[in-house]
């Protein structure tokens, strides 16, 4: 086990216990862990997006490594701009173009997303913030168009097909597989659940009784969701405890134990001082 791994374990223990300390009450350890988490996440996502998408797939298409000598005034000017960028940030714009398998000719259509991306960044400048709307409008329009068909196909048609269940050539009852009884539950649950969200008619009389059945189905569904949520949270807790236990061994210089003890002592002092201040 090298030093950096041990140090990493100590940091992980501190951050884990820092987050857990909120269960006692809001405190400086929790605040440190929370801020570190938000900052590191934002930085990490940004760096990953830049180096896996913007640099190879955008700049790599705009300035690919040319095949031989650059000829023509426009191309020389285009790669002249690249060389200026390369002088400023050589790690992003390496000498001779970006070779990421996008061919050897610049693909100028990618100037469009480049421009839209820059426009979105303009939202930080109050006078030019209106430009950001163009980028956002494009993204929203593209996403809506992309999703419309997929939703219709998978969530509407696919689900209707899934609800159109069979009542023939299957056993009447089965605890584990398809059966008339199970399919009846699917049919009744779907219809009554959908009717509950039909608000053009007052939920009273026979209609009210049917929608009441729909509510029961919804409540069972919410109960199942709650159960799964609890199960998920316990799984995550087990994961953290498993790590804390392994970091509490001699290999990691008993990181969990030392950090826990230190945190308890400091929290006790912090609480005691806080109480004293409140009294004064």
């Amino acid at each position, binding site marked *: 086990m090298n030093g950096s791994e041990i140090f990493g374990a100590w940091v992980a223990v501190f951050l884990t216990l820092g987050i857990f300390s909120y269960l006692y009450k809001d405190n400086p350890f929790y605040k440190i862990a929370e801020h570190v988490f938000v900052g590191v996440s934002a930085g990490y996502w940004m760096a990953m997006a830049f180096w*896996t998408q913007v640099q*190879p797939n955008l700049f790599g298409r705009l300035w690919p490594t040319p095949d031989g000598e650059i000829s023509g005034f426009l191309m020389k000017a285009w790669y002249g701009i690249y060389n200026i960028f390369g002088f400023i940030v050589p790690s992003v714009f390496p000498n001779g173009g970006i070779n990421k398998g996008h061919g050897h000719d610049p693909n100028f259509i990618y100037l469009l997303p480049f421009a839209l991306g820059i426009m979105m960044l303009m939202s930080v400048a109050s006078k030019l913030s209106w430009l950001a709307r163009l980028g956002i409008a494009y993204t929203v329009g593209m996403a809506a168009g992309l999703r419309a068909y997929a939703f219709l196909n*998978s*969530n509407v048609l696919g689900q209707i097909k899934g609800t159109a269940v069979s009542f023939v050539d299957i056993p009447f009852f089965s605890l584990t597989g398809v059966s008339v009884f199970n399919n009846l539950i699917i049919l009744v649950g779907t219809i009554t659940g959908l009717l509950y969200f039909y608000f053009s008619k007052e939920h009273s009389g026979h209609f009210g009784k049917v929608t009441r059945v729909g509510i029961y189905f919804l409540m069972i569904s919410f109960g199942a969701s709650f159960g799964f949520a*609890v199960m*998920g949270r316990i*799984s995550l807790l087990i994961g953290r*405890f498993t790590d804390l236990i392994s970091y509490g061994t001699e290999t990691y210089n008993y990181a969990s134990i030392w950090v826990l003890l230190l945190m308890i002592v400091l929290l006790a002092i912090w609480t005691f001082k806080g109480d004293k201040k409140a009294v004064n």
Partner: protein
Amino acid sequence: MDKFLDFIVRAGSLDRRVIFVVIALVVIIPLFFPLGLPIRATNSSQAVYDVVEELKAGDKALVSFEYGPSTKPEIHPMTVALLRHLFQKDVKVYITCLWPDGQFMALEALEQVADNQYHKVYGEDYVLLGYRPGAEAIIKGLVSNIRKVFTVDSRGDFLDDIPMMVGVNQVADFDFLFSASAGYPGTVEWVQYAADPTGVTMSTGTTSIQVNEVMPYVQSGQIVGILGGMPGAAEYESLIGQPGIGTSGMDAQSVAHVVIVAFIIFGNISFYVERRRSKKY
């Protein structure tokens, strides 16, 4: 009787921190002293196992990692178990990541299973294409032309130089699709943009909280089987006969569930007793 009811009402207003400590204890103790409770595979886990079992040596499986450290305890055990099953059957494994941290989860799982356990060769038996931001746009790109999205893999090697990428151009070229998903983008997007349009058999492993959202797709046959959270992973581990992290966590999971259910019942009794008393006086 009144004293007992007084106790129940008082216990109902227990400091929440006491409950936290109790939960912590019931999770930690079984981790040190395992109970060895039996694990029985559910139909949905069995369906995932069966569909992988039907794959032949040389078939191609696309596995997508859409989770990170925050959901690792739930998803990672199942991806490790699934990779074990796939490599055991000599299936070619292609890995994509729609989450940035998914790449590191994939690297960890591959090191453990492909390199250390099955001694598979990178580029011939498995390939890590890596992460690309863009969510459903990436899936749509993979469906039309993989090389539009990935020109190089996670190591920076050109796809055309990787032996197992020969003849693999789009999602339709795969025999099996598996999404290890902890949210958006994840299973739902793979169903909508890849599995449904191409008809490639798809299974999934999700966090527990996602099970209710994904189950309708399983019920309608759009997804074949689902591994739900840590229990799903434990069931899959028991099906392939290789107990792992999922199995070791199930005792703590089960005991914690019993305690939580007991707390809920107790809380409700306390609530009803208190309400009856307040009506009385």
